[in-house]
């Protein structure tokens, strides 16, 4: 299924991603040298006059990202994905790289509350957005209800898909706390589990949703 189908009705409107547009005719030299782009929402509104474009790269640039409610400063090349920024620059290794092309969901994080595959988002495009990772959802001693349900229902085997699976389920329940098993199946259709843990994922999601029976 298409990931767009599961766009949540977030109170915060995702903006810069949908507005992402490259300025046409910016010049072959500039395009080859790096990325020429409209600034992200906040920067654009605050600092860039209309029509003025921001040039980044190919060398590393300093950017700020809002990760799990905290502002983080990073020095990264514009080609670095949000996933790699999280893992290699911020030490947030709970988010996993598996397919590296948005096909498996292991790198799912929330961008303004919406699940996205962070391997398909450039870190610079996450500026001005609220990023929530698996670490921001809960910790081993203070788990989010979805994480607790995953443990109780044993919705994990090798555990490598688990962070992404948890993020997809949490987003689904955020937008519909009474989600049915069919809705959970659709919400996790973009998450691959090679161990085949899906039945327990469905059970965990129903448990977290407050359904009496967790049997899927």
């Amino acid at each position, binding site marked *: 299924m298409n990931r767009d189908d599961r766009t949540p009705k977030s109170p915060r409107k995702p903006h810069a991603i949908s507005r992402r547009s490259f300025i046409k005719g910016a010049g072959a030299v500039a395009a080859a040298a790096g990325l020429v782009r409209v600034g992200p929402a906040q920067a654009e509104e605050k600092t860039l006059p209309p029509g003025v474009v921001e040039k980044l790269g190919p060398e590393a640039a300093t950017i700020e990202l809002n990760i799990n409610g905290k502002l983080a400063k990073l020095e990264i090349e514009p080609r670095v994905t949000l996933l790699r920024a999280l893992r290699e620059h911020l030490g947030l290794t709970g988010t*996993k790289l598996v397919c590296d092309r948005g096909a498996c969901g292991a790198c799912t994080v929330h961008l303004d509350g919406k699940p996205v595959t962070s391997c398909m988002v450039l870190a610079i495009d996450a500026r001005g957005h609220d990023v929530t990772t698996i670490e921001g959802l809960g910790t081993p001693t203070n788990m989010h209800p979805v994480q607790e349900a995953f443990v109780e229902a*044993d919705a994990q085997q090798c555990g490598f898909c688990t962070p992404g699976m948890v993020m997809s389920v949490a987003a689904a329940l955020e937008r519909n706390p009474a989600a049915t098993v069919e809705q959970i199946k659709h919400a996790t259709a973009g998450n*691959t589990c090679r161990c085949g843990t899906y*039945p327990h994922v469905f059970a965990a999601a129903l448990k977290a949703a407050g359904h009496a029976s967790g049997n899927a």
Partner: protein
Amino acid sequence: MSRRVTLNLGFQGNTRDVTIDIPNDEPTPWQWGERLAVVGKPTPRVDGPLKATGAAHYTYDIELPGMLYGAILRSPWPHARIRDLDLSGAQNLAGVRAVLALDDREIRFAGQEVAAVAAISSDIAADALKLIKVDYETQPFVIDMDDAAKDSAPRVFGGGSNVGRTSSSSIGDVLKGLEVAASTIEATYTTAVQTHVCLETHGAVASFNAAGDQLTVWCSTQGVFSVRDDLAVYFSLPPDNVRVICEYLGGGFGSKFGATPEIMAAARLARAAGVPVKVMLPRGDESRSTGNRPNSEQKVKLGVDRDGKLTAIDLVQRGSGGIGGGAGSAGPFKSVYRCANIRTQETNIYTNAGPSSPMRAPGWPQGCFALELAMDEMARKAGIDRLEFRRRNSDNPVRAAEYEIGARAFGWAEKNEPAKSGGPIKRGVGVASAEWHAVGVSGPEAQAIAHRDGTVEVRVGTQDIGTGTRTVLAIVAAEELGLPVNRVKSEIGDTRFLFSVPSGGSLSAPSNSPAVRQAAAHLKDKLFRIAAPILGAEPGDLEAADEKIRVRTNPSRAISFNDVCKRIPGDSISAQGERVPNYGGFRDDQAGCQFAEVEVDTETGIVRVTHVVAVHDAGRIVDPLTARSQVNGGILMGIGFALFENRRMDPALGIMVNPTMDDYKLLGALDVPQIDVTFFEVANGITNTGVMGLGEVAHVASTAAVACAVYDALGVPVRSIPMTPDRVLAALGHA
């Protein structure tokens, strides 16, 4: 120094007393009907919170100070000789710290390792690979198994034939068995190459000390000790100077044993660069180069007499694991059903494709698919009910009981009716039999430690491939010590712990749990010696239960486990246990059966599995919750093999065309049927725990059950998997 014990063993309605000799210091094996406190109770996995919060550290998550990122250059050609390798471009790139030519100059598949680099970032490492110049002398190659078997085919290995020696087995006289049969069938079945698709790719982080004589490797492996031994040999180091750590790994399924090329590359780059190096494979490399389940072509003949008893089973099989071997699939033909005349012939064909490696019950899902679909074709021709046909030809009492449990849970009697709907969606049901022999092996040793603060640890050099090893071992130790599971910590995944065997062949639970139970029993004896004088009793009169140590005949005379631990003279007290050889006991095999229901759209050819009932025995089930996860996984991987998975090679270019996870089709959430699992407990007495492995037996029959259900739905068999829509339509004559 052994003692003789008589144990009541068996299963519901079929138990008997068996007398065995066991070592004196071995705890008495659990018997049928044994009342246990925590073993057998659903227990969430002990490392669940770490996994669910992203806090579990996999090899892929290891970052060391000053660490470099490695990358591997691979041949784009399926068959070539490297005339010249110019590494200077990579060596001169800023940020590159080490460049290596890998050993082999003969390229036999597209994706074979050629060179490796280590750089200060993964991007620079990737850039450096592009600067390596390789002069390949390309050679003729062969991808297709039929082509490879021809005399005129390009040779994969120099002068030798591509056709390996045929492995044959024979009992009775199969030709005579076919001759005397009242009815026979003959058909050819094929299965595709399947890849493991471990979510965590193969890889390692390697670090040498400054002197270069101590190597530490974190790697994604199913066998830390097997990696240690390979590295020690390669670097001429004493095994104790090599430490291998794998706390968590993101899937293995048989593809992660020993020091595989990427582990070797990480270690060699680390030695060359003098700093730690991390090599984790990109997805495409993982798909092309780290292993696969070989394909198969299976020519099957069955004969049956007037009573519905098999008179002949004949298999002529070929398969190709690329440049690897092990393509046989005869296992199920030789042992699932009783027959006086069985002949099997297996031949491995070499092709210029990535090497095979073991994959979950190697050979069995392929063999079971062909055997069970042939059984259904035979039953239909002979006019016998398919389940009844299997009952008549299986003499395993465990499976006989499991057939009845499964048939009831599935509603076989009602669903196995010829009346099918008139519309384009056809429903069908199938049943298939499983078998495995996950009795485990001797070899592992375990350590159990009680600390003054009352916490207990068990340590074993095993690893958890996702099956819940930590949890199973903690439960077993907790049972022996009379503690709740959360008071026992399992430490695994490190060659600093005592030796254990690789986690493959469903070995982990049956090989490690008896060692842990013995270690815990020995620790308990030491704690009894501390407690005895306090309780005014002999150590031999004590028992551990409910977090107390107490007098067996007078449980009110008790001291808490914690208070005993406070009297430990030092910081801790520890004991060892060993896994002794199997005793024999009741039975050392596993049966099992699975029932499947499918819906097939005869207009589109799309198959949907709607319901699976699985009945499995694995001796004593330690944790039904994590055990159920394993069975679900075995079934779903089997459905994927039946319907979706297929490594595709371009015969003209010799490359894999679907190495990505969007092109290689895996089962997803929307393909998951209702699954009902029943465990059939067997007290087998083969070890002190009687635990057997479950990962493989749960996978053996799944593909076959689906194929049989599709045959039932359509009235014609689909003899090639994956049963993609084109094949379903072709079977219906709509192609």
